[in-house]
């Protein structure tokens, strides 16, 4: 009995210092009916690392992901922080109502999970999980994710192929269900910090109007994604 207690005490002590490596099975589901996700980045990292801070300016790496779906900058940033990273588990776009599952082995100390992907068609909208504490107890956990705005580009809702950072416009409507000839919803971004996305406005005129986004297809309400984490 005494031996058992001391083993237990040892285990508790160990777990409070640093959670050892974990094996995670992660499923990301696009809950929307009309939005596509660009290649997803999934990462386990330490407490000092994050993809962004709500209410602060987006990093150039986050901006590149949110405006053009380019996760290479975020990936380099995470690798440099000794994070465990899975890139592009869906092998391309994750369509509406589709799921993708991947395994992630975490190193000692990488106790926080982050996920990010751009929403298409948007100017700089993205879905993210930002520094979710990975439970130490084995089990199945479900988290719902919201859509955010990087605050780096005006939401003009004009589909013109503009995906590079600082270039106005939306890269593409992947299902080829976008419009053309929109005059632009706005040319300014009132909130230049990372914030909750107000949603696409869209219009019902595929050949004109103010937006190239279809208001019956490309709107959404939160949550926009669910993440199921199985801690093995």
């Amino acid at each position: 009995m005494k031996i058992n207690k001391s083993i237990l005490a040892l285990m508790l002590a160990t777990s409070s210092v640093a959670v050892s490596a974990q094996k995670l099975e992660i499923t990301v589901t696009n809950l929307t009916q009309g939005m596509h996700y660009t290649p997803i980045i999934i990462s386990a990292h330490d407490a000092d690392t994050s993809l962004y801070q709500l209410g602060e300016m987006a990093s150039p790496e986050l901006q590149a992901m949110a405006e053009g779906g380019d996760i290479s900058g975020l990936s380099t940033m995470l690798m440099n922080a000794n994070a465990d990273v899975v890139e592009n588990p869906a092998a391309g776009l994750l369509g509406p109502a589709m799921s993708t599952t991947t395994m992630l082995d975490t190193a000692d100390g990488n106790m926080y999970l982050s996920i990010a992907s751009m929403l298409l068609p948007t100017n700089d909208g993205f879905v993210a999980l930002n520094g979710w504490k990975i439970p130490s107890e084995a089990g199945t956990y479900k988290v719902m994710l919201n859509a955010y705005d990087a605050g780096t580009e005006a939401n003009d809702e004009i589909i013109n192929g503009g995906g590079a950072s600082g270039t106005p416009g939306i890269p593409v409507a992947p299902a080829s269900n976008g419009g053309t000839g929109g005059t632009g919803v706005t040319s300014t971004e009132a909130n230049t910090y990372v914030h909750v996305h107000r949603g696409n406005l869209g219009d019902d005129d595929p050949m004109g109007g103010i937006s190239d986004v279809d208001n019956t297809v490309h709107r959404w309400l939160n949550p926009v994604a669910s993440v199921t984490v199985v801690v093995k």
Partner: protein
Amino acid sequence: MISSNKFKNTSIALAIGISTILMGCGGSDKKEDTMVMPDPPAPAVPVNYAYTVKVVNLTTAQPMSPLAVVLHDEGELWNIGEMASDSLEKLAESGDNADVLAESIVLSGKSGAGILMPGMSEMVEINIEDNMPMYFSLATMLVNTNDAFTGTTAMDISNLAVDESISLLTSSYDSGTEKNSELMATIPGPAGGGEGYNDMRDDVDYVAMHPGVISKDDGLTQSVLTQDHRFDNPTLSITITRVE
């Protein structure tokens, strides 16, 4: 994880079994309630599992069709990314819950009393004998839409003890079976007075989260709906209490 869950369920079932037997032998002194097993074993008494379900309509102007409240051990009423069943399509397009309540997975099903108006709440009682249900599901249509519904599917209630409650807020889903045209002729609720169920599927034909109502006030010229009919998540508050 699965095996440990099963273990817990077995212990709970065992615990319930014992307490029922003790309640069965009426004359016993309460002080002796500890671990005294009756001898000979009491004849099996039907075990009743009863729940009250309180539902609040959180929307501004979306009446909810009569609730479909279901206890079941397997299956789902819907799955994100999969086609809606015919019964769910009927509920989501017309508010008719009869076919959902008649689904083969349903061990016990109960309909709400009627339309649940915005801001209103309703209490539904549901029970089942001799079979501790694993799952709770609930579905109802937002009637001033083409095919929006809300609720929860296959929520695990197997660990709910007597007098315990679970509360949740629900999001809204689109059955994907009817285009969100918002035309008067396609909205069965009071805002349209149009057609409900139609077996034609002219939309994406998979269930996903609903993108919300657009309305004529927010850019859909052909819509019969107004700014009042827009909604955000969550749309329902549900509290399930096990009473027996």
